[in-house]
Structure formats: C-alpha cells, structure tokens
C-alpha cells in the first residue's frame, strides 16, 4: 500500500486535489504572475537605471517620509493603542462598548473617505486645523499631516492585538504578587507588561507595515509636494501617469521587498506571541 502521494500523506478525506488546484491556480493568476511581472519589469531597467531611480533625491525624500512617518505613527499607536486596550479591557465606564466597537472604524472606512475627512478637519479653516494654526502649528500639507493620517490608519492594529492577550491574562498572578507585598506599579511593570510586550510589538509592526503602503488616507492631507510631503505610493502613481513604467516598477519593487521583509518579521513575532501564551 502506498501511503505517500507526492509530498503529502494519504488521508481518508477527499477533495485535496480539487481544493489545492483551485487555490494554486487562482493564486498564481491573480497574485504570483502579476507580482513576478512587476519584478521582471523592474529588472528590465538594468542596474544603472535602478540605482539612478532609487537614489534620486525625490525618491529618497519619499522613502524617508514614508518610512519615517510610518515609524513615528507606529510608536504613537503603540503607546496610545496600549492605553486604549488597557482602558477597554480593565475599566468600566460610560461609552465603553461604543468605543470598543468603533476601534475598527479605520479598518472598515474607505481610505478616500478618511482622506478627505482628515484633510478637512486639519485644514486651516477646519475645526482642529484652525485651532492648531492659532498655536502656530500647521498640519495640512506638511509631514505632520501625513503623520496624523498614518496614526488614524494604524490605530486598530495595536489595540486589537493587545486586547485578547490582556483579556486572557490570569488575574491570579497579580493577586499572588500583591500578597507577596508588591506595589501596584511593580506589579504592572514586572508581572503584567512582559506578556504584553510581544503583542504590542506585533501590533506596532502590523501598523508600520500598513502605514508605509497607505495611499488614500494620506494624499488629501499631505499636499504632495515632491521632496517634502510626497509619499512613496504617490510617487509610484505619478510615475505611472507620466508613463515612466520602468521607474515606477523599480520603486514599487523596492516597496515590495520591504513588505516581504516586514511580513516575515510579523510572522516571527506572531509565532513568538503564541509561544508566550503557552500555545
């Protein structure tokens, strides 16, 4: 009796061939072939052009902006997202349910809607933009605007990653620490935080990955001035509109590789999270 068919071991359940066939074909057509096409096109450009494209001041400025603001936004979201998760899980207050349900809004909301809404809110005659202008701070059409938009976009990630871990935390551990004489702050620092750290890291990395590729939420508020408030995705779109397909392909490939690296990092972090939870 042959037990191994190809790379897998036989089981009594049917449908493997069909299911895998559909999966691989569809994935190949929609994802693999198009993405390979992108990388091939970028390769077509030749090393000289690739270097020129990636090192042009405009491109560098865009990468600096995208990566830099994404990083800052991830840090902000790590901080405030943690506070939000803490408050939602541990405290009871009026409006808690509503707040909890609405955390997912940046997810469910079309990015263009978020984009125009934030642009309006922070423009110099907007509710917040006006108030800030009086304090001398301009948000619209500056990197600060980009930052605000990216904070909005990444908000749910840290909250939704930390919440389940916080909920599963065994309160008995804290009780044991108290009975051993520890003060509240010590307990938080030494007993509660450690299991949450991987979750915060994972959430922040997810937020970061989302933020570097974000387009719709940012382009309305950013002003899109090359070398100043132009993000990488927009640069790609502009190159496409100018029919500079090679240039666009090169930059997009750069982003693609960055995304892959982040994806791997996220998988590793999530595996670490599962270990911490004794999974």
């Amino acid at each position, binding site marked *: *009796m*042959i*037990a191994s068919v190809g790379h897998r*071991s*036989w*089981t*009594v359940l049917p449908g493997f061939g069909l299911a895998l066939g559909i999966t691989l074909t569809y994935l190949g057509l929609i994802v693999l072939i198009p993405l390979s096409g992108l990388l091939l096109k970028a390769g077509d450009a030749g090393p000289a052009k690739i270097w020129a494209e990636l090192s042009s001041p405009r491109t560098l400025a865009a990468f600096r902006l995208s990566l830099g603001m994404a990083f800052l936004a991830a840090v902000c979201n790590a901080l405030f997202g943690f506070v939000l998760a803490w408050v939602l899980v541990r405290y009871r207050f009026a409006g808690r349910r509503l707040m909890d349900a609405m955390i997912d809004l940046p997810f469910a909301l079309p990015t263009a809607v978020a984009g125009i809404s934030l642009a309006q809110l922070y423009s110099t005659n907007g509710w917040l933009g006006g108030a800030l202008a009086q304090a001398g701070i301009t948000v619209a059409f500056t990197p600060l605007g980009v930052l605000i938009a990216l904070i909005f976009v990444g908000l749910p990630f840290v909250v939704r990653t930390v919440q389940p871990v916080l909920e599963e935390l065994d309160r008995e551990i804290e009780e044991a620490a108290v009975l051993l004489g520890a003060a509240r702050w010590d307990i938080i620092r030494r007993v509660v935080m450690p299991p949450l750290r991987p979750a915060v890291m994972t959430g922040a990395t997810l937020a970061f990955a989302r933020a570097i590729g974000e387009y719709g939420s940012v382009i309305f508020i950013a002003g899109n001035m090359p070398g100043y408030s132009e993000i990488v995705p927009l640069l790609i779109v502009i190159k496409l509109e100018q029919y500079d397909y090679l240039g666009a392909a090169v930059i997009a490939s750069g982003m693609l590789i960055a995304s892959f690296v982040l994806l791997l990092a996220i998988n590793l972090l999530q595996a670490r999270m599962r270990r911490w939870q004794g999974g």
Partner: protein
Amino acid sequence: MEIAVKNLTKRFEHLTVLDRVNLQIQDKEFIGLLGPSGSGKTTLLRILAGLELADDGAVEIDGRDSSTLSLDERRVGFVFQHYALFNHMTVFQNVAFGLQVKPRQARKSSAAIAQRVRELLGLVQLQAFEDRFPTQLSGGQRQRVALARTLAIEPKVLLLDEPFGALDAKVRVELRRSLREIHDTAGLTTVFVTHDQDEALDLADRVAIINRGIIEQVGTPVEVYDAPKSPFVFDFLGHTNSFDCVVRGGKAYLGENQLVPDEVIRDGPAVAFVRSHDVLLARVDKAQTTTSTRRLPGTALVRFISALGQRAVAEILYERRLIEVEMTRETLQELGLQVGSKCTISLRHARVYARREAEEQTRVAERAAVRPRKRRRFRDRLSTLR
C-alpha cells in the same frame, strides 16, 4: 469477521510507529490493544479502520486484502477518542446521519430511519435525549451517542479509540458492562485501544500488549498477567518489585533460594520480578516460613503502611530498596506489623528476566538507584549470596 494483520509497518517522518506488526483477530472476538502513549496502538486502529494507510504490509478482512475493499464492504464502525459528535446536530440527527447519507437506492424511508434511531437510542438508554445537542450532554452520554451512531450503520467490526478515557470511574464501569453486552448481542468483532490495563484485563477476551510499535505479547488476560513474556509486559500490567539475582547453569540464585526461570536465560546477571501480592512478610520474632515459600536473607524495615479499603499496602525497605507489599487487612492485623517493625521477606512467585533486557524495557535501574551503583566483582557478588 476475521482480521489478519500481516507485517504492518508505518513510519511517520523518521519514527517507525509500527514495526512489522502481526496479529490475528478472530471472528466475534473482543480484543484490547493495550500499551503506553506513543506505542502505536491508535495508529494500528486507524489503519484497521481505513483512516490511514500503512507503508508496508497488509490487512486482510475475511481473507481479502482490505485495500481492495470499499468502505461499505469493510463494514467497520469507528468510535473516536473524543467522540467527534456533530455539535450542530441533535442526538437524533447524529445517530440518523449514517442512515441518511446512504445512496438513494440503499436509503430507507425517513419513518424507517426514525424507528431505527429510536431503537438504538433505547439500546444505549438515551431515549429521552433525542432532541438535545451534544454540548448539553455529559461525557458518558456523549460516548453512548457515539456508540449508537456507529451501530446505526450495522458494522461487523467495532473499533474504539480509548473509549472510556475521559470519563469518571463510576461511569466507566457502567459503560464497560453495556459495551460488552452490546458486543455479545450484536455478534460484533470488537477491537479497542486503551492505556488502562484494568480496563483491558477486565473487558477483553484477549489482550495484545504493544510497545514502541511492536506487539510484545498476545493472550488472554490471565495469560498475560500470570505469564508475562517480557519485563515490559510484567511491569506494564502492575506494580513490579525487582530483586537482583544471578543465573548460573540455567538456575537463578536469589539468596539461598533457587528459582527456575520460565524461559532459558543465559548465565549472568538477572532480575526477579515479583508482584506486590506475591511478597510475603513475617515478623522477625515470629518465624513463620512454610516450605512452599522462599525466604530472602536479612531483614526489612517497614517504612509506610496504608490500609485502603480491604487491601493494605506496606512499603518496606530491604537492602536499600523500597518494596511494595500488598495483603488483606486481616493479614496485616495478624502479622501485627507497624511502621518501624522489622520483618522478613519470602517470595511466593517470581519471574526471572535477563538484567539487560529488564533495564532496557523498564525503569528497574532507576528504582535501584536507592543504592549507589557500584561495579561489583563476581566474587563479591557470590559472597552476598551466602
């Protein structure tokens, strides 16, 4: 339905889970596959069911190679360890499932199906529960639903994977009786897997003891308990007390006693395995030896006594080793032993195995670690036997 397992081998990654296993299962037999976790017993069961394929060897059902048979022709019913009940269906729907998925020609009318389902629920005494969902049932009730569901398709062979594993002791005993009754009335051939030797020895006509993919011994419960062929089987079926001895010229020497090994063992170091109830104690000051027992040299110290129910268990220290002795409460009182008393030991019955085999298959060496393992010269060993 006779099942013949011939040289069955199954590998999983680099581990050999079943190693050339051979087993003959008679028609209408109730046989238990007994072994520790990881021994391969569940894998063997699943291969019998057709849920997995072996890498080598064959399973023959009534003389025909099972790989040529379709699932209906095999007439196998399988009860999973965690029951695998369909949680979104009621008890009635679970039991009816096998009857409802039959191809159109073979399917009975829904009235006939309903009648059969109710019959089966009556058989397992769950008539009042037909509209409940599995999550609303206790472990024992779920087990009975799983059984009824399997019986619905009228199998000739019933395969059960650790059927009573997750249940309370009392529920287990009740279910054991029902299972045996169902087996007898329906004329099934039943194979069940368990790691609980009480269960296996209680229920089965024959027991196959399996360890690390190899069948160590097959026999009736009495056979395997009284005449275990290997140290593993002996140790697996009950507590083992072990005494070092030496084999010379085909006889084993333990103190001044001669034991005749049941099988031929080469000269050299050996171990005598003795059951707790085959160790007899006597107060030092009251010499009570009968000719049929064998007294060991030296005295032992009673360290611990526990009287559980009608049995008493004493832990005694002999030659820096802890020996467990089982006797009735009356005997304990007659002997007048207490913690701290000194006593002598006699052995009623012992089985001798080669020392190396015993150490490979059981944890004799660890138990003997009470005494530091010095390498002793043969001459010194002889001197202790005097």
